[in-house]
């Protein structure tokens, strides 16, 4: 009789313990999951807070108000081969290249150095004897040269960088900086030489560069 009662009590205590144990495990797993979710959220907040901000300097910025910003072909001439263009007037420093069609007529021009002039220069083909001479019209405009250095650790895609003149004319630096790379980046310690044929017809006095929420400005020399 005593043995049977002891057995029943033992079974009840065992099952009770099992229930309590399982309940505690359920509660424990809830607490663990809750802490895990909170840690996830906190880590994300810490991650976003620790994201490096861009740091850079505008080393120098110069405005050339008489730069050749466009060369139009009036007459393509004939008898040319692909070659170079130079200025026959002034010493502003213009240079360019051109391509020809099957008859040797100039069909396209690319500016390699915009130069700086007080009046529109005469553009000529360098060292060729054509059948018919080509003629060109030049347009002078604002051209900005600037050197900027990445002084931080943030590696910036050029397509996320913008340059402004007098707070207007926003231009994506990725569209004006030629690096040969399809998606160029600006690395720590790297200096970029920006050459920008700014579209304003009037002289401008300042440029600003905005990178990921950080903006720097400089007066033009």
């Amino acid at each position, binding site marked *: 009789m005593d043995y049977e009662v002891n057995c029943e009590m033992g079974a009840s205590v065992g099952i009770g313990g099992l229930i309590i144990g399982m309940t505690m495990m359920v509660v424990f797993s809830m607490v663990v999951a809750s802490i895990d979710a909170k840690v996830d959220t906190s880590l*994300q907040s810490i991650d976003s807070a620790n994201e490096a901000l861009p740091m850079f300097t505008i080393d120098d910025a110069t405005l050339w108000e008489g730069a050749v910003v466009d060369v139009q072909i009036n007459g393509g001439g004939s008898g040319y081969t692909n070659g170079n263009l130079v200025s026959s007037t002034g010493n502003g420093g213009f240079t360019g290249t051109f391509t020809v069609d099957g008859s040797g007529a100039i069909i396209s021009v690319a500016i390699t150095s915009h130069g700086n002039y007080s009046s529109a220069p005469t553009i000529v083909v360098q060292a060729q004897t054509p059948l018919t001479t080509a003629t060109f019209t030049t347009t002078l405009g604002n051209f900005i040269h600037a050197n900027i250095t990445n002084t931080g650790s943030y590696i910036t895609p050029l397509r996320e960088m913008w340059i402004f003149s007098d707070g207007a004319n926003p231009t994506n630096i990725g569209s004006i900086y030629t690096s040969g790379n399809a998606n160029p980046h600006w690395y720590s310690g790297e200096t970029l030489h920006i050459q920008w044929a700014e579209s304003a017809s009037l002289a401008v006095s300042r440029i*600003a560069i905005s990178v990921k929420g950080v903006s720097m400005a400089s007066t033009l020399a």
Partner: protein
Amino acid sequence: MADGGASTFILLVTALLVSGSVSAILINQWGDMSSALEENRKGKEADSKTSVSFAGDAMEVEYDDSVTPNVMTFYLQNTGQYVLDKETLVVIVDGASVTASISSQIVPASGDWSEVNLLKVMVDSNSWAYLDDDGVSLSVVVSSDVTSGYRGTDSMNIEVRLDV
């Protein structure tokens, strides 16, 4: 013995039923709490991936006083990871909302307001009479497009100087 065994069994079954009910309630409550935490987490994630910043020259914000009402023009950059919704833009100038008179356009003039595009913002007000080199306080609030069911929000404040 038989009576004692039956009552013990009844107690055991009752204990199991009560324990099961409590567990069910706890698990149900936990499910609700877990959902609330998940909602909260996704909301915070959307906020942390939504960011807007002023772009350009804060010393030369364009202000056109030749038209009525006067027009202020500035640029905003998406500095977050989510595409921003320009229709949700709220602009406050010197503490007064000018949200009703906002016009905006993406620069370059196509695509969404992603991190590679700027938003050109033009706001006007009949109550403005600012002069060249006046300083104004500019505040902007913007939300992201709905991403994974959530919309993040960010704001920025900056002191700018007007260029008439």
